[in-house]
């Protein structure tokens, strides 16, 4: 329990930290957000600028501004996006599920394929299959995601017509009634299997592209942690006393290697997001990545702060959950 409380407290502190960094960052940017918001002509008029500054609370000292921002935040108010003129919360509510659907798909693909490959590689260490899998893993972490996205789109859509084009749904389908925001889930809930199928078909290519880097990362770390476990006495003992191979693998190897693998999945979330920004750009996915890109290039500060906050919160939550699972699986961690 104490372990849980400490972890939770730490996560909360980090989250406050993220609000501070979003705030400081947006105050420090040398670019001029007022010009970005009002346009060159209006920004040349001191009256308009003063009115705008007052309306946005920009005339107050930064510390006051921060607490106003924090107070609004607690009411679920992230401000109004300069680019879309919508409340940032509303924009994020639409963009976030799109990215979540993509990211979950990618993580699932990466974990299932990655663990299988890592297990095969570790069990057949230094044989041909191991070397091939390790080569695949190096390729996975070396290939530029944005290039892979372009190449995959060109090959599978443009040349082979195996996959549908960009976006989350074909043009002739309407988005399913919104429940979770995940098109596949919502379509199934609404009893529209054809829409769900179409959403899934759109998901496959960007999801696979996004999975490649995480897959490569996972294979290399999972392989070495499985190898570590493989050399432990208890695994040798299990083998020596004649436990069937499959049982050794599930009960001993994967369990023993679970912790380092969890850590990697947590860390992979960060790189997954970088990948999402680039992948979404190519596939016109309309998720957080594309939103973040639009907001950054337009210096749309409320949107940037919103994105930073939600992504930071997700990252912190994921790592909190992993920490908890960690403490659950490995009692030694709880003490420290």
């Amino acid at each position, binding site marked *: 329990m104490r372990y849980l409380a400490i972890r939770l407290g730490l996560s909360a502190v*980090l*989250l406050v*930290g*993220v609000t*501070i*960094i*979003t705030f400081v*960052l947006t105050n420090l*940017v*040398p*670019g001029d957000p007022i010009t970005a918001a009002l346009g060159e002509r209006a920004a040349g008029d001191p009256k308009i600028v003063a009115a705008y500054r007052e309306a946005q609370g920009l005339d107050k000292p930064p510390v006051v501004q921060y607490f106003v921002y924090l107070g609004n935040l607690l009411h679920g108010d992230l401000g109004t996006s300069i680019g879309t003129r919508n409340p940032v919360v509303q924009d994020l509510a639409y963009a976030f599920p799109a990215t979540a659907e993509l990211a979950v798909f990618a993580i699932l693909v990466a974990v299932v394929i990655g663990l299988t490959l890592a297990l095969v590689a570790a069990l057949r*260490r*230094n044989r041909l299959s191991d070397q091939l899998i390790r080569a695949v893993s*190096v*390729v996975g*972490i*070396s*290939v*530029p*995601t*944005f*290039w892979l996205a*372009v*190449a995959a*789109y*060109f090959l599978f859509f*443009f040349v082979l017509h195996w996959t549908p084009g960009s976006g989350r749904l074909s043009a002739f389908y309407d988005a399913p009634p919104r429940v979770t925001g995940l098109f596949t889930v919502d379509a199934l809930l609404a009893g529209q299997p054809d829409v769900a199928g179409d959403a899934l078909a759109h998901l496959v290519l960007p999801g696979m592209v996004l999975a490649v880097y995480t897959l490569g990362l996972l294979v290399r770390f999972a392989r*070495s942690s499985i*190898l*570590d476990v*493989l*050399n432990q006495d208890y695994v040798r003992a299990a083998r020596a006393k004649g436990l069937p191979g499959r049982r050794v693998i599930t009960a001993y190897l994967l369990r023993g290697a679970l912790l380092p693998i969890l850590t990697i999945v947590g860390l992979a979330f*960060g790189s997954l*997001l*970088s990948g999402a*920004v*680039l992948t979404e*750009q*190519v596939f016109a996915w309309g998720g957080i990545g594309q939103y*973040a*890109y639009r907001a*950054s*290039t337009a*210096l749309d500060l409320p949107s*940037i702060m919103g*994105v*930073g906050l939600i*992504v*930071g919160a997700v*990252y*912190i939550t994921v790592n909190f959950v992993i920490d908890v699972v960690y403490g659950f699986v490995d009692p030694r961690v709880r003490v420290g």
Partner: protein
Amino acid sequence: MTAVPLRRRRAPSLPVAWRRPAALAGALVLLAWVVVALIVPLLPLEDPLRQSVGAAFQAPSAAHLFGTDQLGRDVLSRTLWGVRSSLPLAVALVAGSLVIGSVLGALAGYLGGVVDEVIMRVADLVFAFPTIILAMVVAAALGPSLVNAVIALLIVSWPNYARVMRALVLGARGQEYVIAGRLLGAGPLTSLRRDVLPNVSAPMLVLAMLDFGNQILLLAGLSFLGLGAVPPTPEWGSMVADGVVQFSSWWLATFPGLAIFSVVVAFNLIGDSLRDALDPRTAGAVQGSSI
């Protein structure tokens, strides 16, 4: 005082790393790119900036081995010239993060107390904030240019080095030879420089090698998004972006993409081998141990 002889000992058999064919292959690829970067002005190539609108979007042919882009510029020439913008900046970026991160991490680990708290909490904050978004915001705010992209990535990449360095210094600080040095009258900075840093430099260099690929990918990624290289500079990330506009001309994105891939793979192969050579646990893999 004369130095403790132990710290003069070389890092554990780095040359072993080069016995691996993969590392050798990586080094050769890298060497090839360095040579290209040096001699590219002497090669019989078209000017990478010369436009000829009449010859736009030509597929690869004998005249243009890699085809031409939307402005009729020779893609082969631009791909080869591209190494001049990508490689030196990546080196500057990694060297910069290595130096900044190491100095801050070493100070945090060695001095402890308030210095440690401040440096590491700032590092935590940067960690908690999504890398790519922070980099995008900084790059967008500074205005698109390759140097600004490097600055943006410096800001997000030093904490990783600082963390590792801090842990290494904490480990080395309690060693007897360091304490002996302090007892013999060395001040904290002298002790750090003479006794601690030489013993933690090898793992830091490996970390930098392993980081290279990532940084190149991020740098090219920012350029791909239009936040790095400015036209008409031949740069690989922005060349791939040109290919997105014109999907049917596959050669626009393919060749610069392969160039990025080759450099990143080369760095990763070298980094892997160096790490294995330094880490006795994985080093066994080189000789092929039992089980």
